């Protein structure tokens, strides 16, 4: 057993407002500069839809992530294939698949001389400077815009008749905020010919070394989530850094801090690094999700704790792991799932699936609150998104959310808690109460449990105290 700690995230899609507040401070702080205009470390997509870049989920097209042959291998091919194509990466998405970033001649509105017609300004490309006919953007499909036609390209309709769901009568939608998954088995790191990408020892954050990157862009195509981007100005790739300058200080990420829907949870996960390859090599795709949960170690198991201490895991990390909202949502309660586990990267940003309005109603209302099959979002769709098609775990998670609501309603209205409804969903009252506090009351201190960085072993803090900030790199 090799115990490692990672700071991971869970997003509760059942609370997501689709407001994009998460994206904006992220953009303002990290990618609001030349060469990075089209880069959104965090973006929000409407589902169904094909997203940004277009059809990023379709690996038949993009060749991202891993696949299983006789053993685990990069879908785009290993090092020999990369060397052959080193000056032409065939799997790289074109700028139109993201979108050509644009601006306007705003100053002309202020300085225009008197004209025959009222001045107006048209979009112009930030790349070519020429007038641009807008055709795609980072959120082109917002609230199902245009999805009556693009929706047919959404791979999550697998095993479903998409035409039925792309009409008013059967319409459904939800939002999918996306950031780098900071995977345990990162295909981007594996794809880099320069060794510029790495996973941080202390928190598992995956980064592109801006000094070592040579701009080959195999990380861009290798990432099945399309969350590594090429900065065309610096010639280097950049990606979500999980706001490590904040994480190190014990602050949560900007996207999580600013999330007004309060859907994000950030906390420590202890996992067994020795099992990564085996888990990612699970034979059947639906086995990937359970295999990944098995990598996660129970931070309250005394044996795990003892072993972690002996391997040098910091006490503060162990304590944080014990209070981790992420572990509770993913392992204890089975409410959260990885995004497209079939990409085999073992992603560390997980999602609680959303409830949706009932399409039909039965007289016995208990039945409804027990039955995810009658909701607007097809279970199959969610399973394709979160569990490589296995509906059972998603069904259970939705049933638990419904049972929680039903139980709480009985407590409030009838003055008597109906624990029967919990039992049917495999829950105890204690679990329901704790779940309620985390999902509904959701206090800041419970959403984010982040230890501050430990540098004692790394640098001489006595010296560093006086030198911090005098950074020759910035000079």
């Amino acid at each position, binding site marked *: 057993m090799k115990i*490692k700690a990672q700071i991971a995230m869970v997003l509760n899609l059942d609370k997501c*407002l*689709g*407001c994009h*507040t998460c994206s904006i*401070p992220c*953009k*303002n*702080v*990290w990618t609001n500069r030349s060469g990075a205009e089209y880069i959104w470390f965090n973006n929000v997509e409407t589902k169904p839809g094909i997203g940004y870049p277009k059809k990023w989920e379709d690996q038949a097209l993009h060749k991202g992530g891993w696949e299983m042959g006789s053993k685990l291998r990069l879908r785009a091919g290993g090092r020999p294939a990369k060397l052959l194509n080193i000056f032409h990466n065939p799997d790289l998405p074109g700028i139109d698949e993201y979108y050509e970033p644009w601006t306007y001649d*705003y100053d002309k*509105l*202020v300085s*225009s*001389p008197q004209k025959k*017609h*009222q*001045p*107006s*300004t048209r*979009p112009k490309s930030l790349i070519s400077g020429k007038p641009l006919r807008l*055709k795609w*953007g980072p959120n082109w499909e*917002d609230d*199902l*815009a245009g999805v009556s*036609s693009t929706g047919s390209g959404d791979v999550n309709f697998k095993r479903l008749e998409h035409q039925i769901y792309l*009409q*008013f009568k059967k*319409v459904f*939608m939800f939002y999918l905020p996306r950031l780098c998954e900071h995977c*345990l*088995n990162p295909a981007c*790191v*594996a794809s880099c010919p320069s060794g510029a990408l*790495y*996973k941080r020892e202390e928190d598992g954050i995956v980064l592109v070394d801006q000094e*070592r990157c040579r701009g080959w862009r195999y990380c861009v195509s290798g990432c099945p989530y399309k969350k590594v981007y090429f900065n065309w100005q610096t010639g280097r790739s950049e990606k979500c850094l999980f706001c*490590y*300058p904040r994480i190190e200080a014990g602050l949560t990420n900007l996207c999580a*801090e*600013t999330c*007004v*829907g*309060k859907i994000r949870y950030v906390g420590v996960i202890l996992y067994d690094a020795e099992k*990564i390859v085996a888990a*990612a090599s699970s034979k059947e795709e639906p086995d990937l999700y359970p295999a990944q949960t098995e990598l996660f170690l129970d931070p309250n198991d005394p044996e795990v704790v003892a072993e972690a201490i002996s391997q040098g895991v910091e006490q503060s990390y162990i304590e944080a792991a014990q209070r981790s909202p992420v572990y509770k949502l993913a392992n204890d309660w089975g409410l959260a799932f990885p995004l497209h586990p079939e990409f085999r990267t073992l992603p560390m940003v997980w999602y609680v699936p*959303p409830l949706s309005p*009932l399409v039909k109603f039965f007289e016995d209302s208990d039945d409804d609150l027990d039955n995810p099959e009658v909701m607007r979002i097809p279970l199959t769709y969610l399973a394709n998104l979160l569990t490589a098609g296995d509906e059972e775990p998603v069904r259970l998670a939705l049933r638990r*959310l419904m049972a929680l609501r039903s139980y*709480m309603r009985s407590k*409030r*209205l009838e003055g008597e808690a109906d624990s029967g409804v919990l039992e049917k969903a495999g829950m105890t009252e204690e679990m329901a109460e704790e779940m*309620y506090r985390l999902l*509904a*009351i959701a206090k800041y201190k419970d959403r984010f449990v982040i230890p501050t960085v430990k540098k004692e*072993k790394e640098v001489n803090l006595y010296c560093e105290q006086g030198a911090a900030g005098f950074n*020759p*790199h*910035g000079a």
Partner: protein
Amino acid sequence: MAKKSLLSSLRLLRPRDGCEKEAIAGGWAEIRCGEREWEDFYRRRWQYDKKVRSTHGVNCTGSCSWDVYVKDGIIVWETQRGDYPSCGPDLPDHEPRGCPRGATFSWYTYSPVRLKYPLVRAVLLEMWRESLTSQPDPVLAWQSVVEDEEKRVKYQQARGKGGLVRVTWDEAATLIAASTVHTIKKYGPERVFGFTPIPAMSMVCYSSGARFLSLIGASLISFYDWYCDLPPASPQIWGEQTDVPESADWYESSYMIVWGSNLPMTRTPDAHFFTEVRYRGAKVTAVAPDYAEYVKFADTWLPAKAGTDSALAMAMTFVIFKEFYLDRQSEYFTSYAKAFTDLPFAVVLKPQEDQHVSERFLRASDLGVDQNNSQWKTLYYDVKSKSFVVPNGSIGFRWNEEGRWNLHQMDSESGEAVDPLLSFADENDGWVSLRFPFFDFHGAEVRIGKVPVKKITGDGGEILVTTVFDLMAANLGVDRGQGGEVAEDYDDFKPYTPAWQESITGVAKDDVIRVAREFAENADKTKGKSMIFLGAGTNHWFHNDMTYRAILNLTTLCGCQGVNGGGWAHYVGQEKLRPQASWAAIAFGLDWRRPPRQQNGTSFYYFATDQYRYETFDAQHIASPLADGGTDKHLADYNVIAARLGWLPSYPQFNRNPLDLCREALESGASSDEEIVSYVVDKLKKGEVSFALEDPDSPENWPRLLFLWRANLLGASGKGHEYFLKHLLGTNNAVLNKEGEKKPEEIQWRDPAPEGKLDLLVTLELRMSTSAMYSDVALPAASWYEMHDLSTTDLHSFIHPFNPAIDPPWETRTNWDQFKAIAEKFSELAATHLGEQKDLVATPLLHDSSGEIAQPTVKDWKKGEVEPIPGKTLPNLSVVTRDYPNTYKMMTALGPLVEKVGIGSKGIMWKSDEEYEALKEKLGMVAGSGITQGMPELKTGKQVAEAILLLAPETNGRTAVKAWGGLEKKTGLSLAHLSKDREGEKMSFADLDGRPRKIITSPIWSGIESEDRMYSPFVINIEEKVPFRTLTGRAQFYQDHEWMLAFGEGLPVFRPPLDMQALGSTEITRGAGKEIVLNYLTPHSKWSIHSTYSDTLIMLTLFRGGEAIWINDEDAASIGVEDNEWLECFNVNGVVMAKAVVSHRIPRGKAFMYHAQERMINTPGSKLSGMRGGTHNSVTRILVKPTQMIGGYAQLSYGFNYYGPTGAQRDEVIVVRKAGKVDWYED
């Protein structure tokens, strides 16, 4: 990125214990230790020099506290501040409040669209400068420009076409001041207008122009009614503008119907309470025509066709009334109805065609009861004494007496406890047939219902009465075994049944029955914790009041109002200005002069932009089939009558300059203010002076000057945009309409219609908005990160500040400093041209004044039906002395009336002498000689903010306790205890900077502010028994004003949307081609707050980069349109060009254009108009409703932003067709 330095290379050599690079993922990847110094690259970006607490003064009800980050002296980004006081351990907290729009605000700070210097229209500037060379007096120079018709037309026609050039602040201020002085002198001060909305979003900024303009006697224009965000149903039912639960109170609810209010999109910072309470077991039903964002969170979706909501609500009322009041009686509902609603009150029936119709509430005067205001005291039948009694609490008890204006169930004469009878069904003198108005898509009909009656002998003989409860039952058609047009069951296709509504709304009847039942059962079990969210989606329609009344029926019938977690939750446009009374005193200059001039927006713009000339239907079209005459007038006629009788304000007041009128009166021997007034009344009576509104298109009655600040009238709220351009501004426009055939009787019609009424349009703005683009002068304003101000909202009960992160950059100034500059120049020029003058101010019969019981019946003095008496049958007339040369001094010092007369609101006044003294110390006293010497100084925005805080009961506990005094006297109730535990608190600006603070309970608001519970409206009415400010003192289902009955709106009923296609909206000659007519809806946008942020690059990038219209995929296919193609959308009002957003989320037959997308971004030309495509308002025209003009009648009395006609536009239709290749009109 910096090159690696020697030092960093050396650092790499340092040993690192216990940390080694290792391979993972089968050797494919690595975990790296060391060689990580480059990570400082991102660390350095995150570092900053300071952060400052501020917020966004934008019209969104958000009022979120933000941190603004400054790095290297530059504002770089913002994140939410999360330190609101906690809601307690068992409730979610407010943090983090904010939204994507607000998160982009820092973009504006340095953006190229920012106004950096004062700008003036070049062609005007040239004339002005030229004129000054021959005429150095700026006032005379302005006169020589503006009175030269050729010149005037020339610069007016240049409006909106670019050509603004930089001038100095001094030159800009001189031009504006000269124009203002000239207008006052020639036409009168009320011909100067100011428009700014939503004080709560930045109350000091609102005050800046409002204070200056009020001091000079100019007219301020209201916004809430004009925006059609005011729900007239609220004053109609409760006598309250709008009062709603704070968002944390949603968490107390256990059943929610979200009805046309898009919480995730428009209440982004608060929506989490809505999503979270579901886990507490709350059930959610969404009523929405489209699959809106909020539908995502619902358990049940009722996809009612847009505009048919009242049919759905009537059917739910049918179910609830039958199942919870008739088939069985919910004990909770019944006792609530008796205590807090008009359901038991007696209504007089009048014979009509062998049957009867319902008329007025029975009044004490009908029975000859000799009491104060007996015409305004209503009665019900008491079971105990078996007689009709006059219970405490009706509006007659509010004025000229004390101690009985309360909701104790008590006979006001005997003082005995009473038990009102809800229905005469079991105790009556028979049942009679009653005629009810019924409306549907085919027109109006009469329906017959049976009601039990009692016969009373009154002064004038026998009177037949029934109860409001019995009227409701008969109107709904619930079968009570007495015949009439009743429904057998829910499946019966008779009006108001669930089956009936299905044919109108498209919602399955079983769903309606279930939701109605669930809603009521939930309320019964929880004593009222069922809540309905409603908003623009239901309120922006012509019959908005009837839709709301129908929906609100449900909350009142189920005892939900005044209960935490229950009742209505309307959040549009109004942001609760918590320190309302103290703010108003400063904003409207009440510390110096009273009363101010306050004009209702809808009427103003209706006439000023001549939209009234294009009416296509008269009032008969919407009248009750039971009305006996008087309903065939032009809609404008009702407004003229309303102005004449003192119901609505109307500025300009008369066809004369009020300064001249006063001077003339004095010259004719008037020796007192009273004599000036009677001089004018006499002239009015003789017809020698007339109301300006009777001749609105005559040049002396035009508005001449308009100041816009914190407002984008032309780019956002100006409904009938093209009419604004044509008639008010006199520039190019796309009006394709013909004037209406029916002419008003009360108005002098002038041909041709005037074009270009405004002499000068001034916009004080942060950025180049559409309004700035069309203005003659655009003054650069400081942003919200560059000033001190205060912010509050109805969504939370905190007050928190704006702070400057940097000083205003370039030549920008705060609104306060901008108006100070204008005031200073104005005062200087006024010394020569104006001096001190008397001004006659006409004001309407105001809500919460004794004027609200002025007119029990409608009598027109002009027709000789009564004598013209100011304050009774005419508007109030007051003489105010204007000390024009001292305007600047008065603006910058807190005047003496605060101390001498006091301040107050909602009919409650208190003296602020202690606070006045304290402010001298806190703010410093004005030094130097002059009228303000020794007074508290108001030179800076921060001083204004401090003054507001110290004078307000909501932020000064001592004042709060004091403020209850007046209400205690009036009601005979003990109330001061509500604020007592916070008596010692005084919130200063620095306190708020430290942390947002929760405000203190005050008599200005109807709910309780406390650490232990969330704010919910009407809690004080229900728990403390303070009456609602209505005729009966209770929540009113029934409206008995003559005009209400004439338009069939005594009781809530279904009123279908107007058929605008039949009314001519699409009658335009045009070429062939595939087209489709769609109902045109303009909901709030996701990518902007009105027009603010609509031009920021991030918001434009996050959607489609410019103007867009959503249509259904099948509708699009029918005209051969694909997603992202250009559309030309038009009707008689104008044209809008936009990209098609094709989606199956939108129902067929509807077009959604999210509103206030600026016409300066990505807007091509239209072949139809030959001009650049317009705004979302280019295809709208407002529709005004006579019943909303009623005044001088209890709760139906005017208040600024409180009651009055709303600017409805959502019934409109547009023609949509593919635009093909577009021309950009770059010339």
